[in-house]
């Protein structure tokens, strides 16, 4: 097949991935509203281009650490939405058998080493995973996703210094949606920003428009190549926007309406659809991709709803080997 055809297919795949992430989270939101999903739910609606553009450059054996807003990362890395949805629903068929929920989805079989409920919690873990892989002479790399909030936590400095020091195969991606919970990133981050911090810790860094999946794909593509070649860690700062509130129950009403409506126009799915149309993709073809994605997630929701709950006794499994499967005294 020609390069052009390859490239074209890659773009369509981007769109499909983004549409699936969007559909997954919209479905999850509505299930949450309907009381089908317990616990807090952080959706990444508006940020799909980052997850997509990053993970398309990764192999299955590559590892990924994520944060509390990680559905997109998991789907893009190859996790099955049905098992993710079941996990959100707290069912036995979920990735963690219902023990984790939204903030702790992991699928080790596709290298997804887990979401994390602690901001910046994944950074040291990613460094160590890379160190362990290097020790075992693996050619796999580790991608570490975190938000703008994480750059103000200590492990950011420690981890970047660490990865640079040992020339570890880590790709750091700061998914900067401009806000941490209910606080604007620029109101709590002094100095020139994440990029300068990464460079100051010895990690080569670049910025990208995180709402432009083609740009993300390109910049990550070259960063991944560098990392895989053994040139040490790379850092990409992807600027994006969180269209929804912090959690499913937050209306984010404190944000400037103009800002939000401007951001809606930069919605990565809408922008990318326009690009694809320009390049000759029929609107119907895109609509079909969206419809398929929605159908997949509706099915996932329906399946999750009738999936079995975990046996109560399962609460005592997988604590640790010692004293397993019993009330430990």
């Amino acid at each position, binding site marked *: 097949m020609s390069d052009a055809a390859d490239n074209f297919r890659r773009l369509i795949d981007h769109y499909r991935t983004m549409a699936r992430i969007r559909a997954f989270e919209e479905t999850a939101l509505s299930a949450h509203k309907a009381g089908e999903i317990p*616990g807090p739910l952080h959706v990444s609606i508006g940020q799909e281009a980052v997850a997509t553009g990053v993970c398309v450059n990764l192999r299955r054996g590559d590892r990924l650490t994520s944060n509390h807003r990680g559905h997109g990362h998991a789907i893009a890395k190859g996790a099955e939405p049905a098992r993710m949805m079941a996990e959100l629903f707290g069912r036995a068929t979920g990735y963690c058998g219902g023990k984790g929920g939204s903030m702790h989805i992991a699928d080790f079989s596709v290298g997804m080493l887990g979401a994390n409920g602690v901001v910046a919690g994944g950074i040291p873990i990613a460094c160590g995973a890379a160190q362990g892989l290097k020790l075992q002479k693996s050619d796999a790399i580790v991608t570490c996703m975190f938000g703008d909030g994480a750059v103000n936590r200590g492990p950011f400095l420690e981890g970047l210094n660490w990865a640079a020091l040992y020339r570890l195969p880590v790709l750091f991606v700061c998914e900067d949606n401009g806000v941490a919970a209910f606080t604007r990133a620029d109101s709590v981050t002094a100095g020139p920003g994440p990029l300068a911090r990464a460079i100051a810790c010895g990690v080569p860094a670049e910025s990208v428009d995180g709402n432009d999946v083609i740009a993300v794909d390109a910049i990550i593509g070259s960063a991944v190549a560098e990392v895989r070649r053994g040139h040490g860690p790379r850092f990409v700062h992807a600027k994006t926007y969180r269209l929804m509130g912090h959690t499913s129950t937050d209306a984010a009403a404190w944000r400037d309406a103009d800002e939000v409506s401007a951001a809606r126009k930069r919605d990565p799915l809408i922008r990318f659809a326009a690009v694809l149309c320009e390049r000759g993709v029929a609107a119907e073809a895109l609509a079909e991709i969206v419809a398929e994605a929605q159908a997949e997630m509706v099915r996932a929701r329906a399946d999750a709803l009738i999936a079995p709950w975990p046996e*109560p006794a399962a609460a005592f499994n997988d604590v640790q080997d010692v004293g397993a499967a019993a009330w430990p005294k």
Partner: protein
Amino acid sequence: MAEVTLIEAGRLAAQQEMRRDPTVWVLGEDVARGGLWGQYKGFLDEFGTDRAVSTPISESTIMGAGLGAALVGTRPIIEMRIFDFVMCAMDELVNQIAKIRYMFGGQAKPAVVVRMPHGMWRNSAAQHSQMLEAWFAHLPGVIVVTPSTAEDTAGLLVQAIRSDDPVLFFDPKDLFGVRGNVAEQIEPIPFGVARQVTEGDAATVVSWSTAMPVAAKGVEMLAEEGVKVDLFDLRTIWPWDQAAVIASVKKTGLLLVVHEAVEVSGFGAEIIARVLDEVGTGVLKGAKRVAAPRIPIPFSPPLEAEVRLSPEKVMTAVKGLIAF
């Protein structure tokens, strides 16, 4: 008097103290917006950005800066948002705040209040549900406050803010909505004085924080069956009201401790060991704990239910003690 929720009671107490004393201020994430729980609603407008400080996600520095500010004579309320995140600030809490007065031979006055909403709440899973208050009873240098009602939250928070000792204030997440009557002028409640909730000869039941309403319900169900017990809400586990509990055990001979935290090495163990030490086996005829198994908190409701206390478990435990 106003009937308010527990979280609002805390807000009123902090507000009263900040109005009274200009050296009192609060720092933590999202404080500008009123805090994650609305516990500082209106503070930014009333007290300004210097006294209602919205911080970066920098727990080590939130905690350590609070200490530093106390060393120059202010009285910070250090807001940790959710207890579990204090794990990102343990050096500052354990190695600095708890020890600084002692290490420096009394020169330092670490008059901080560290607020840490703890416990299970709406299936938040393992990293957002922990209760480790027992750890801090084991840590010299700190006060450990564990209220369960709106009234106690208000009075104890006032006491905490006025205290020269560092106070670890565990807000009970699951009880933020319970209501109580808070006075116009909130009086401080002294540390180490238990609140007796019910009276009876059959047994002594001791509890605190989120376990209290469960224990109370269990005790109520027992009463309906004619079994009357002394029920105490400790309110603070360090110091804790040994006199009240010991006096009661001398009457009842039986002791049950109910807490949401893991049973193994929880504070219930200390209460039992201490009471036994004081009264001996001539007096103490039996002692049990109703608490959580030694497992992380699972997400899924039926799994979480395995960890949760229930009035039935409390009732069964008291009956077991009596039968024994």
